[in-house]
């Protein structure tokens, strides 16, 4: 696309369809965690605590740092909060 060989309009619609329903494609993986429940139970508490804990740490640190540095970025028009177009 950067070479302007492929026009944006050609791929935009099909790409949007794929990305909008990207979550669907993960469903079988999540169902697959079912097969591992016995393993998870063995170390259940340790896994649960560090899973939740470290996920929150990543989110907060990444978001916080990005927000702080982003404020200093050159001319920052805080973009419109695109509202959900949740049809289907």
């Amino acid at each position, binding site marked *: 696309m950067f070479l302007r060989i492929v026009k944006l309009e050609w791929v935009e619609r099909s790409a949007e369809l794929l990305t909008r329903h990207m979550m669907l494609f993960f469903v079988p993986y999540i169902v697959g965690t079912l097969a591992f429940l016995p393993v998870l139970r063995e170390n259940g508490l*340790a896994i649960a605590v560090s899973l939740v804990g470290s996920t929150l740490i990543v989110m*907060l640190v990444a978001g916080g740092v990005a927000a702080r540095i*982003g404020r200093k970025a050159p001319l920052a028009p805080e973009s419109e909060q695109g509202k959900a177009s949740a049809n289907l």
Partner: protein
Amino acid sequence: MNLREIYEHPLFGVTVTVGAYVIALKVQGRWKSIHPLFVCSSAIIALLLLLDIPYDSYRTGGDLITFFLGPATVALGVPLYKQRQFLRRYFAAILSGVTMGSVSGIAGAALLVWLMGGTRELMATMMPKSVSSAISVEIARQAGGIPELAAVLTVLTGLLGSMVGPALLRRLGISGDMPIGVAIGTSSHGIGTGRVIRDSELQGSVSGVSMALAGIVTSLLFIPLYSWFN
């Protein structure tokens, strides 16, 4: 046609998954706070358990669906292209957020497993779980963790971040498309990206870039961090 013939058909997995997904979206339309992936996956899990359907029968169809993850990831390039100026302007902020987030995530996971008295094997499995599964599985394997468990934990991490992330961040005062995208992409890879791109193309593209950067940063920094913790 008995039940067994039905569920052993490859289309069984496809039908059930797509059907549950459509219902989950309808549920979300009514109760905004319920995450469609959660509804969809638990409905399928319940169905498999109730009818005593082996996971492998579901998987034949399920694999047909996960196949589309490849094309969908490539399709993420389109929003990235459309938002390229925004992404370029905030690149420094995105990269710093991703780097700091990944490092503290790896360290945090190691520390928490250690505090909870987990084994070293578990630690190696937990540490890389915020990047997409192809990468986290390989890292876990090389660090002496359990690759299969790493895949499961990666998926659960993505689901968790995707479920609580946007609301939690907003409550803690982290707002704006850029910081939210960075936080979600770094912590919950593709599953999070799939969630935020439904709300906003901008968040989705930042999240997509962050997820890719997190994969690179984690691969590069994992070994030094891991040996430091041992």
